[in-house]
């Protein structure tokens, strides 16, 4: 049986049991929180990828591909 905190645990990269303190929230509130976290995660990811692209654009284009490979981006 899935744990009620499975989705949040996935988003927060932790174990569902470590989110027991969130059991005071109703299911609908937990869903809303998951939506908030997902949005924050997407915004953060976009921000970091954008910053990395900007950084790579500062380099001579011949270096960009090997550096992408080196850093895994």
């Amino acid at each position, binding site marked *: 049986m899935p744990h009620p905190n499975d989705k949040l645990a996935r*988003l*927060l*990269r*932790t174990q569902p049991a*470590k*989110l027991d*303190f*969130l059991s*005071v*929230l*109703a299911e*609908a*509130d937990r869903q*809303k*929180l998951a939506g*908030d*976290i997902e*949005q*924050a*995660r997407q*915004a*953060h*990811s976009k*921000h*970091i990828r954008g*910053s*990395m692209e*900007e*950084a790579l654009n*500062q*380099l001579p284009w011949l270096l960009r591909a090997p550096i992408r490979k*080196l*850093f*895994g*981006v």
Partner: protein
Amino acid sequence: MNIDRDTELRRLARVLHREPGQLGHLAALDGAGLMKLRTLIQNSLLEEFAGLFEKIAASGKLAPDALSALLCRKVFGPSITANMSYYVPADRAARMCKHFDDEFMAEIAREQIPERAQEQLEKLPVELMRGVTRQMLASRDYHIMGGFTDYLPEQKAMILMEEIADPADSLRISSFAQRKDRIARLTAQMDDGQLMRLIDAAFKEPAFIHEVGLVMAQMDAKDQQRMARLTDAVDPKHRATARREAGKSGTLEALQAFFAA
């Protein structure tokens, strides 16, 4: 540590790009729960790219500080530099900061998680922090400053307070700091004139009266009595206003010495 729920809600709202009023669905969580949630969210965001930041930090390990700092400024930018900083030894990070200007350092600070930057805050010379403080005051980044206040060595915080000319700004920063006990100790070190200006600013906005109440609640009886004397000197009606506010926020008992004086 006594976790103030409103303070934590403001900080969590910033992390989620929301207004505190939009987080009504978290009403059942107390201050400690909100803090735990915020920390988990911040760590999960950092972990998503941890491998990348670690690799970038490792790639510059053998380069001289000045060259690494130049790459940070010219190539990586503040966001990547901030995230990478957690994987750079604090001594080296502090040395690299000497090659950054105030604006770049402020941009880095805006991206950092104060909890994770604690060691760097200890190593960084306070003189380098003055310019960052001025930059952040100018850009009204009170939520960042409040977060850092919780982890900044108190001696440094005391020195940096000299940069805050407007007492209302001190209260705005305090409203984002969770360690009200630290704010109380720093406040108690102010001279009478500074405190009277702070009290005057506080009684101009209900949210500030609440904030001062939270800070005073962490003071010992002697400091509360001093605050009472200075509050009366600013306006004898203020303490009655403060009592009403303390009644609403449940701090009456903790402020006994202030009201009894």
